[in-house]
């Protein structure tokens, strides 16, 4: 990395730090929160991406209000446990997740971690563009224009010039994920039933826990916990320049993100449960078909908001996932990798950022490619690649040389190991239902 790039990067970060220091010294509590939130909200709302919203739509349409509402709350609580570790890792080490893995585990294990990340990132990015195309299609926007718009949104990083500007623009777009809340209200659900399901986890799926239910269950876990989230948030925390004093705010940021994302996910399930109530077979629906099918129950405004929500979910996730790929690439190749660095000074970072998005967009434009069929399976694959990622995360969180007094204690380790075991066990049960026909829980 050239000295000049480092200087420009440092000057931008120092400006941000100055504002934080001023807010802290003048005890401006709300301003401090405003300055320090970002990576956590972005990662959680970013994970409410197009395939995730489609998974929640399939959940609501096929199982209605019941077991899956509190289950989604549980999965976001697990996501919080994993992401909180990346806040500490980023604030303590001031470097990215890929960099730490390569330094502490060596190239052999680092390459495995990177292959998991790149494989799931590329697959997920393709499904983000499926969502973008489907959402835009509802408004009559042609495929090619939608893909160009998506790549254009990702390319905004080029003109943002600073991490702070990029983060705020993406954050505003990410908050529109909450459009699913008014759609849920417009579907006039029985709120008593919604409350009761959160308290009792009932009713259970009428189909039982066979292969089909477990695919949806895994897809919902994959809709909240995926490898790219770890790489993105640690990279963003380090790019934002959070320090040891900011860890509490980083946790708050992640918690706010988890709450907002749970609201978006639960609202999507509630909205699409209208299809379950009216016995509509939605097992083969794509995003646009969900929006159209909902029209009789939520009106034209509701279905337009639903389609917009899918479009937005794809745009935000395409941005954050491309960024996580670019961070990881820069960390591994030791090239400039910061949104605080201008494009001229960090060409490979921005090139990877745009290239991965453009490649995924191009796949969507291939004629006759059966994309809709694989959208839910992408979430399943994402969750199945998660156990090794949690393994690296927990080992790093207990690495005294890196973490010092910020290493995980007994409680945090218990929670972290529980998340890892839960995700692994869910995968094993899924495998049993596939390998042994008729296997049922």
């Amino acid at each position, binding site marked *: 990395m050239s000295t000049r790039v480092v200087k420009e990067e440092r000057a931008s970060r120092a400006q941000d730090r100055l504002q934080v220091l001023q807010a802290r*010294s003048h005890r401006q509590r709300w301003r401090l929160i405003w300055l320090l939130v970002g990576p956590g909200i972005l990662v959680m709302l970013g994970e409410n991406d197009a395939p995730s919203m489609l998974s929640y739509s399939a959940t609501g349409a096929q199982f209605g209000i019941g077991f899956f509402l509190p289950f989604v709350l549980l999965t976001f609580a697990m996501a919080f446990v994993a992401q909180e570790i990346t806040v500490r890792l980023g604030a303590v080490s001031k470097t990215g997740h890929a960099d730490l893995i390569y*330094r502490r585990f060596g190239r052999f294990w680092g390459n495995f971690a990177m292959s998991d990340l790149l494989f799931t990132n590329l697959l997920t990015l393709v499904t983000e563009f499926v969502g973008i195309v489907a959402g835009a299609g509802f408004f009559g926007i042609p495929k090619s224009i939608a893909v160009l718009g998506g790549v254009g949104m990702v390319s905004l990083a080029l003109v943002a010039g600073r991490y702070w500007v990029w983060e705020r623009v993406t954050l505003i777009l990410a908050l529109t994920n909450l459009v699913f809340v008014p759609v849920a209200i417009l579907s006039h659900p029985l709120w008593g039933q919604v409350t009761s399901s959160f308290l009792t986890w009932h009713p259970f799926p009428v189909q039982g826990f066979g292969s089909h239910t477990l695919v949806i269950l895994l897809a919902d876990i994959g809709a909240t916990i995926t490898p790219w989230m770890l790489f993105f948030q640690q990279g963003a925390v380090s790019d934002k320049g959070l320090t*040891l004093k900011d860890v509490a705010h980083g946790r708050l940021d992640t918690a706010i993100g988890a709450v907002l994302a749970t609201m978006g996910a639960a609202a999507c399930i509630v909205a699409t449960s209208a299809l379950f109530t009216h016995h509509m077979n939605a097992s083969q629906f794509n995003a646009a078909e969900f929006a159209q099918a909902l029209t009789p129950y939520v009106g034209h405004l509701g279905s337009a908001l639903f389609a917009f929500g899918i479009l937005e979910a794809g745009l935000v996730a395409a941005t954050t996932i491309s960024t996580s790929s670019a961070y990881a690439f820069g960390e591994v190749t030791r090239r400039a990798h910061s949104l605080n660095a201008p494009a001229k000074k960090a060409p490979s970072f921005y090139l990877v950022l745009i290239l991965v998005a453009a490649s995924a967009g191009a796949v969507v434009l291939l004629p006759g490619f059966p994309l809709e069929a694989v959208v839910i399976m992408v979430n399943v694959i994402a969750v199945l690649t998660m156990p090794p990622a949690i393994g690296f995360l927990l080992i790093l969180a207990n690495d005294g040389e890196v973490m010092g007094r910020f290493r995980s204690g007994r409680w945090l380790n218990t929670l972290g190991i529980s998340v890892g075991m839960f995700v692994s066990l869910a995968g094993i049960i899924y495998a049993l239902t596939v390998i042994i026909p008729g296997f049922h829980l």
Partner: protein
Amino acid sequence: MMNSDVKVSADSIGTTSHDAWIEQALAEHRQSQLHVEQLGRLPLSLSLKGLMWLLRLYVLFMIAVVAVNVFQQVH
């Protein structure tokens, strides 16, 4: 572990030169970077290496399971 007690005040930054206040604002970052640069490989116990191999095989097995599941659904 790096020294986490880097003391920086907003007021002192306002009175120093451009380069100096950047250095002051990012003192903790510089220390962390130096510390990370010095990090070596983590010594992995045999059981930890075994666990990491197990998780790697888990992923490979699961990818095969997904392929079987997709094949079952298509046919």
